[in-house]
């Protein structure tokens, strides 16, 4: 049980860090390029720990992100739910992709997410997103390998430690 608890801590800390990173202000020039960190973290955990991540949890995280971000309530909830749903559906395949293919898949997922965001904004009557922000999914795909390796490293360490402890 220690292992599960440790993993739970890692999971929630990862989510919290992702939300903080999402809020973190960047210089105006690269602000639109900021990758969508909560999505990356959720993708990792839905690939690695399917018992932990569900569409409902993604929805909840999205609601929290909306609340923090001050955007339309339900916007990120919807997008993350869709994202996690797709990842869970194709989990078995995605998991065994080589890294570059995985990164490509992440790019497609984030692009889809971005299209959804653009649609929601259009429906809500908000100003369209800056053109530069369409590069954000590519940036997200570019950092995906590092996110994956980092989280995987933490995960395996915890697992190893937990295994020793139990």
């Amino acid at each position, binding site marked *: 049980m220690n292992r599960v608890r440790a993993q739970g801590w890692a999971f929630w800390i990862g989510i919290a860090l992702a939300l903080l990173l999402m809020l973190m202000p960047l210089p105006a020039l690269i602000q639109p390029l900021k990758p969508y960190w909560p999505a990356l973290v959720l993708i990792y955990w839905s690939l690695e720990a399917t018992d932990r991540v569900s569409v409902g949890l993604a929805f909840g995280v999205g609601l929290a992100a909306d609340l923090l971000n001050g955007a339309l309530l339900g916007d990120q909830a919807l997008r993350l739910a869709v994202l996690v749903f797709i990842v869970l*559906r194709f989990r078995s395949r995605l998991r065994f992709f080589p890294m570059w293919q995985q990164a490509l898949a992440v790019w497609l997922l984030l692009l889809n997410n971005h299209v959804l965001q653009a649609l929601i904004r259009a429906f809500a009557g908000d100003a369209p997103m800056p053109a530069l922000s369409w590069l954000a999914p590519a940036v997200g795909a570019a950092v995906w390998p590092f996110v994956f390796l980092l989280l995987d490293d933490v995960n395996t360490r915890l697992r190893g430690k937990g295994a020793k402890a139990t």
Partner: protein
Amino acid sequence: MALPQKESTPIFSDATAGTLRLIAYLALAAVLMVLDHRNGWLHRARYATAAAIVPIYKIAAAPADWVHQAGTAFAQRSKLIDENRQLREALLLAEARLNRMHAVTRQNARLKQLLDTQQLLGMHAQLARLIDVQLGPTRDRVMLNVGADEGVHVGQTVIDSHGVMGQIIETLPHASVAMLVIDPDHAVPVTIARTGLRGIAHGTGDTAQLVVPNLPLSSDVKVGDQLVTSGLGGRFPAGFPVGTVAQLKRDASGMFMEALAKPAAELERSGEVLLLRDQPDPIGPPAPAPEVGPPASLAPTARARSQGQPAEPAGAVR
């Protein structure tokens, strides 16, 4: 009903259940978005949770703050020097502008005072500006920017808003020279405003000092008494402030008292002055007293005594 498979309910197949769940969540999200869009719920929710959210924002913004601070700390020196120089230049410019504004403001105030003086006096006066100052131990003269062509003539009184400055001693076509009251060659008949005691104020060559000599030891003079022009002698109109008694002492002989006075006019400061147009009543020195008594031929020695003037000759002693 099929048998339970794994952990999920068997109503639908696993995939179908997932899809349905997704659709339910999507619908929920859509409802939320619409409600939020219509009612501004999010704002209220954020308002309610602000206490918790604000620290989160601060935490999120902290790295950016650190980066900014580090950037300031390690900013290139040349850039800072450049910025410093630019700021200093801007400061100089602003200061210069400010000083100019101050000068203009002061000039305005002075002109207003002069105008007031002129109106108060009900006299015709001519505004003139100092164009040259020759202050020194022997010559205390100023040059004004108006001259004979503007109607200036020798003998006109020069005043500023505080008192008598001097008189015109020389006119040029477009300039004139005025002798200040502090010129050692200058004298102005005065009375002490409080008591009416007459005297003559001489210049000393010191911008801060006039001297009124030959006052009787018993006379009622105090430090702080106002000296005003007496109008005697016909050069200066009566009633203009000349100075304030600053010090009283016995003169060298010990028989008389002399009063040292501070000129009323701001001799070192005035930039604009007034030339009085109206001359005082041309009384001049009083006519010699009519001879009374025995014919002069009978008393040849008394004649010299009876011709003494009641007042000393006034005006410029040149």
